[in-house]
């Protein structure tokens, strides 16, 4: 069940919306505002509206000609990547990323063997899913109840950089922000304690700085 927005919170967060629209909010402030906006249509509309002003400011950056060889260098790099078609590459990358997530879990407690064993029978729950962006599979997420409840995710080439927020949608329809981590060059790997059992999580969403969905996974 989704929460009703608190109007006093709306007033308190009015100034935060402007800062969020220009990417000037970080940390807990940012998580709190995103959490509020998700449940408050009024503030979501205001954030979208302020973002149009922020977009307009992009036109103020000066144009500067790069080196004369710039175009050729860019096109050479694009041409190089274009000879590595994404579809055949993706499944292998995802397999690697799932392995990376499990390896991260191992670092948390050396429980890989137990996780694999648990998947074969009763006991602690472990769920693995592919994180997808609009461009396709971009990572993996592992949820497990071994040694407490954990979420581990890996993202690669996610089309975003900087701080992102992770939210989970639970089986009762509610959503929770469970933390933030940083993508560098589209890549990031992260582990966090889950505030709920993995079996109650129906979806995991990674949200970028402007409130857009970077990637999501259905469980």
């Amino acid at each position, binding site marked *: 069940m989704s929460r009703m927005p608190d109007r006093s919170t709306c007033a308190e967060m*009015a*100034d*935060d*919306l*402007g*800062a969020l*629209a*220009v*990417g*000037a*909010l*970080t940390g807990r*402030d940012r998580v709190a505002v995103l959490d509020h906006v998700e449940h408050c249509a009024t503030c979501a509309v205001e954030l979208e*509206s*302020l973002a*149009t*002003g*922020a*977009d*307009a*400011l*992009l*036109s*103020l*950056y*000066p*144009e*500067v*000609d*790069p*080196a004369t060889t*710039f*175009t050729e*260098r*860019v*096109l050479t*790099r*694009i*041409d190089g*990547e*274009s000879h590595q078609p994404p579809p055949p590459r993706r499944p292998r990358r995802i397999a690697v990323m799932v392995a990376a997530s499990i390896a991260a879990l191992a670092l948390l407690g050396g429980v890989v063997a137990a996780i694999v064993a648990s998947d074969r029978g009763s006991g602690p729950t472990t769920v693995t899913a592919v994180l997808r*962006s*609009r*461009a396709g599979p971009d990572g993996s997420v592992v949820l497990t109840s071994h040694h407490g409840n954990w979420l581990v995710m890996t993202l690669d*080439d996610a*089309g*975003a*950089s*900087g701080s992102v927020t992770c939210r989970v949608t639970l089986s009762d329809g509610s959503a929770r922000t469970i933390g933030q981590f940083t993508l*560098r*060059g*589209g890549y990031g790997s992260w582990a966090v304690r889950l505030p709920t059992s993995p079996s109650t999580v129906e979806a995991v969403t990674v949200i970028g*700085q402007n409130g857009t969905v970077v990637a999501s996974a259905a469980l």
Partner: protein
Amino acid sequence: MTVVPGTQPRSWRRRRLKQADGVSDEALLTAMAAGDGSAAAALVRRHQARVYGIAYAITDDRSAAEDIAQEAFLRVWRHAAVFDAHRARAQTWISSIARNLAIDFIRARRASPVDPHDALQRGELPSAEPSSDTRLVESDLVQRVRRVVDQLPTEQRRALLRAAFSGQTAAEVAVAEDIPLGTAKSRIRLALAKVRDTLAEEEAFDEPDA
């Protein structure tokens, strides 16, 4: 070419600009996503000065700016197929990618971005004069935005440019301006709302009568 008052595109945010070669950015992105190398070349040439300019303005480092600009165009190429023309103009989307990469760079390097106020004083923000007929409509937008920003109260303009132009966080704006964090956030929001409202009012004024 002359822009007659009242004939500007209806939406300054989502207008589809056609360039001298008659091909819109959106069409180039579509062709690029389909593997058209000539479209990729045209798009890079069309936007490289802006993308490199953004990276250089934020980092003040030519080498880093080149790397960032190259990476920005690679991101554009990788994600051209999922660009949503209903959510943003292509130029805004491309510029946002370059800006975010540059800000990530300076935050990772813990370098101080260029002070936007200094840039304004040195006249390093773009000229309001259009560089050619082919950019006349776009330059009209630049003129409008610059005029709106210039008319903001000084303290609001400084806070907004620090955050939006240089990528400073609200907390960094507060320290740089020696003001409480809440005041910094308030100045950013008030300035941004004025930019939004003024541009919307001008757009409504430009709308021809039905």
